[in-house]
């Protein structure tokens, strides 16, 4: 498989997508999940993603710090832009009736668009070497689990089966393998683009953590518990990356 790096990139990014389905697992045992637990899951994901983006930045600045920070700026702008586009959709959906179905659909659209930049992150990380790639893949895979949780938490109470919850969760992350491959091929073909790409992934991930994951975590669980869990996850991620 190592002789086909493109296939490897695809498989790794597919793993992150499948991990999203794990978010449906708790719903096999219960219909609802305590908000505190979802908050903690978000805190774990936040810490892992901050740690992962530290790794991306450290790798990127080795090639050029200006390019890395420039790429980070692009990553932030990309997420901002997708947010804007989705924001308008949100209003349209909000104006219609049949709120539950729409809520589900909206949730899926939001998650799917998110997955684009995460796929890019996995692909670009492969340009920085296997260790970085594995670390980023793990970070994004674990981050996907609370996303699957969130999707299932909306769908399951509507009577959707656990299996279907898992299926839709995985579906929402399918852009990851689809985006990872061209992102990888691009940074491989255009080597000077690598620090830009690494910065892009770091900026996008950090922005998502700061704009969504952390505020959600604080909203659901106490701040000392969120801070402890996120900081420990961050430290764990940094060490994990180092020993790969």
């Amino acid at each position: 498989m190592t002789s086909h790096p493109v296939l490897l990139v695809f498989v790794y990014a597919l793993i992150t997508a499948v991990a999203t389905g794990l978010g449906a697992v708790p719903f096999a045992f219960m219909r609802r999940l305590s908000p505190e637990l979802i908050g903690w899951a978000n805190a774990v994901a936040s810490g892992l993603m901050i740690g992962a983006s530290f790794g991306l930045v450290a790798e990127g600045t080795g090639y050029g710090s200006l390019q890395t920070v420039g790429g980070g700026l692009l990553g932030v702008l990309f997420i901002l832009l997708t947010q804007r586009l989705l924001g308008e959709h949100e209003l349209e959906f909000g104006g219609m009736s049949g709120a539950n179905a729409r809520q589900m659909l909206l949730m899926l659209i939001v998650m799917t668009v998110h997955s684009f930049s995460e796929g890019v992150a996995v692909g670009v990380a492969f340009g920085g070497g296997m260790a970085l790639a594995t670390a980023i893949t793990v970070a994004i895979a674990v981050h996907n689990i609370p996303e699957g949780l969130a999707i299932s938490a909306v769908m399951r109470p509507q009577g959707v089966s656990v299996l279907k919850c898992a299926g839709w969760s995985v579906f929402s992350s399918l852009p990851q393998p689809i985006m990872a491959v061209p992102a990888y091929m691009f940074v491989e073909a255009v080597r000077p683009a690598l620090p830009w790409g690494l910065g892009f992934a770091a900026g996008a991930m950090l922005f998502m953590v700061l704009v969504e994951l952390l505020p959600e975590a604080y909203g659901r669980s106490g701040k000392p518990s969120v801070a402890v869990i996120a900081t420990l996850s961050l430290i764990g991620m940094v060490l994990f990356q180092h020993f790969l």
Partner: protein
Amino acid sequence: MDPVLIVLLYSSIAAFAAALGVLPIVGRPSPPLRWMGWANALASGLMLGVAYSLMVAGLEGRPLHVGGGALLGVLVVWATHALTGTADLDLNRLDEGRPEYGYQVILVNMLHAAHEGVAIGVAMAVSMSFGILMALSLAVHNIPEATVMTTVISRRGIGLRNATVLAIVANGLQVLNAIVTFAIVVAAPVLLPWALGFAVGALVYLVLVELLPESYRQAGHTSIALVTIAAMGVVVLLQGRAG
């Protein structure tokens, strides 16, 4: 100049920089809540940038010791909050009636600054130029932090001049800890990765438990995230240029 004097000089600059934090409220005794949110976000981003830089410096040596130090850092900050009864304290309340609140805010700010002193001291032990960059980043960071603190305590009837002095004094332990940490790490270099880790763990935990949670209630999520990342980016950029 003797290295200890350089540590003293730059950690003092960091402490005195806090006085500038009063400027935004000189003209506007009750600044909009958004300002406090952005001040918190700016302070958060600079701290995260410093934590990132220290982490990169630490990983060049003994990563497990850095990890151990980081755990210790989280534990110590958590314990100081728990033992002083300030674990769930919101540092940004403008209408808090409890008489002890003002003292608690100053206490938490003092403890916060003390942990940053470790960061300055250990960075100086890594190399002087790195230490100076970290000290100056934290000096800039002290300004918005002081803005938040002086806004809160001036609402409680403390005059601007007294609030300014209190903001500087609250950073006194930063100077002391910077010098003590520097002296210890230089005397016992095996402790360097531990001290680096301690600073990383403490700084990240402080951002996540003190600064960011309130900021989200003061300004929009998007603007908080933007200010935080921009501040981080500046530190990363400066560090890349210097190193």
